[in-house]
């Protein structure tokens, strides 16, 4: 177990990270992500308020739809990345990272300037389980009457899972199809055990419980950013290739001016994916070297169990950011060759 934002979390379950990772790609993996924070926003100005503090366009959401977005600073850097769920026109739920929940909560309150909204940090009310992988739908369908095939990607419904009321959302952080279930915190154990049982855990093709290490390798293969690694308060959304969640034309929001300016000027550095071409594994925070110069840093580096490669993300100056660019990574004093490649590293076939 490790301390993760104040939560005791398993790095891996007995099957081990590689098996957990592979099973999620081929069948299903279950993740207890109850540590994620939830902030409830209610009131007639809910949409206007959240649209002011986030970069994506909340007005585009309909009831039952979710959106990936970011809380931005006036500099266009990232306070946190999050999902916004539209429960109703006057009711949004923000799902934020565990380690940043307190910071986000203070940030959101401090930017509340008279809008008609009630803000509540409801993180401890919810548990969140993520069932991910090609078998996720067929497993979860055995526990709910909701027609899951009608829930489109980044949409959700209210319903019961094993008799427990909650939100069932077709979202995830693995690059696979799958669902995230939000329910009352005290039902976590029941849901966890029931999903494992119905999913035939313990059999070679059954669902496996997965820990933080597999969650990290899965999201890295799918080239999804992790707060505190690829994005933080020193990186802008544009540098992080998250221009697609910067809706500069939606009207004013915190950071819009800085991001619009940077878009015109062009970014000086960029987040890129790379593949190690030598033997060796690049790790977080190691230096990236081009022509003998230290030009950037690895933000996440790891073996990719499904691709069977060693991959990573790094920030490099834009002149070195093109696919095919040869780089070196300083792996504990040894220069290991790598090459910038297109992301995502992994994309599921259907």
């Amino acid at each position, binding site marked *: 177990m490790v301390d993760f934002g104040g939560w005791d979390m398993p790095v*891996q379950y007995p099957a081990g*990270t*590689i098996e957990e990772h592979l099973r999620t790609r081929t069948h299903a993996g279950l993740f207890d992500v109850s540590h994620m924070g939830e902030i409830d926003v209610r009131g007639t100005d809910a949409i206007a308020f959240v649209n002011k503090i986030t970069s994506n366009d909340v007005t585009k959401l309909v009831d039952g739809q979710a959106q990936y977005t970011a809380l931005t600073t006036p500099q266009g850097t990232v306070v946190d990345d999050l999902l916004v769920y539209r429960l109703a026109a006057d009711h949004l739920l923000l799902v934020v990272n565990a380690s940043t929940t307190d910071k986000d909560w203070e940030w959101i309150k401090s930017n509340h300037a008279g809008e008609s909204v009630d803000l509540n940090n409801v993180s401890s009310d919810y548990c969140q389980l993520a069932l991910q992988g090609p078998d996720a739908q067929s497993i979860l369908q055995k526990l709910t009457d909701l027609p899951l095939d009608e829930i489109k990607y980044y949409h959700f419904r209210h319903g019961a899972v094993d008799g427990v009321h909650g939100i069932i959302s077709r979202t995830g952080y693995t690059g696979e199809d799958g669902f995230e279930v939000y329910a009352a915190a005290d039902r976590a154990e029941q849901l966890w055990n029931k999903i494992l049982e119905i999913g035939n855990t313990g059999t070679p093709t059954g669902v496996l419980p997965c820990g933080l290490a597999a969650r990290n390798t899965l999201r890295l293969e799918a080239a999804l950013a992790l707060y505190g690694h690829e994005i933080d308060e020193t990186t802008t959304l544009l540098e992080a290739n998250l221009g697609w969640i910067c809706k500069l034309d939606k009207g004013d929001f915190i950071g819009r001016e800085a991001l619009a300016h940077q878009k015109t000027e062009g970014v000086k550095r960029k987040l890129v994916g790379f593949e190690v071409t030598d033997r060796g594994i690049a790790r977080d925070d190691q230096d990236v070297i081009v022509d003998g110069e230290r030009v950037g840093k690895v933000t996440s580096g790891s073996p990719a169990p499904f691709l069977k490669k060693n991959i990573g993300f790094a920030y490099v100056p834009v002149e070195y950011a093109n696919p095919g660019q040869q780089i070196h990574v300083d792996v504990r004093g040894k220069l290991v060759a790598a090459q910038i490649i297109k992301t995502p590293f992994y994309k599921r076939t259907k």
Partner: protein
Amino acid sequence: MANVPEDLHYSKDHEWVRVDGNQAIIGITDYAQDSLGDVVYVELPKAGEEFAANEPFGSVESVKAVSEVFTPIAGEIVQINESLADEPEKVNSDPYGDGWMIRVKMSNPGEVDSLLTAAEYEDFTKAESE
């Protein structure tokens, strides 16, 4: 419970030593491989390199972490387990056999007497995991 063969010598850094004349074969223990998880990469020195006792001779990487490995006894590398380059998982599946790492010519064969016996190592790991 981790496997701790009787006939080996052990270090507090979780390496084992098997004496073979004036040479020694070194690897990491079952307890160590279990704590590390799936081994995905093993970096070993080259034959001919010399190491002092307790000096790091390479590293073992799991998906999540990098750990240095130390030679409990001084000596010159005479052979490394080349097969670990392509099959690092042998460290997990057979830590005392196919997962061996290096063979050294001992500078001071008496050094093994200062290492832990199997019983001592077992007590040591019990204390460490409590």
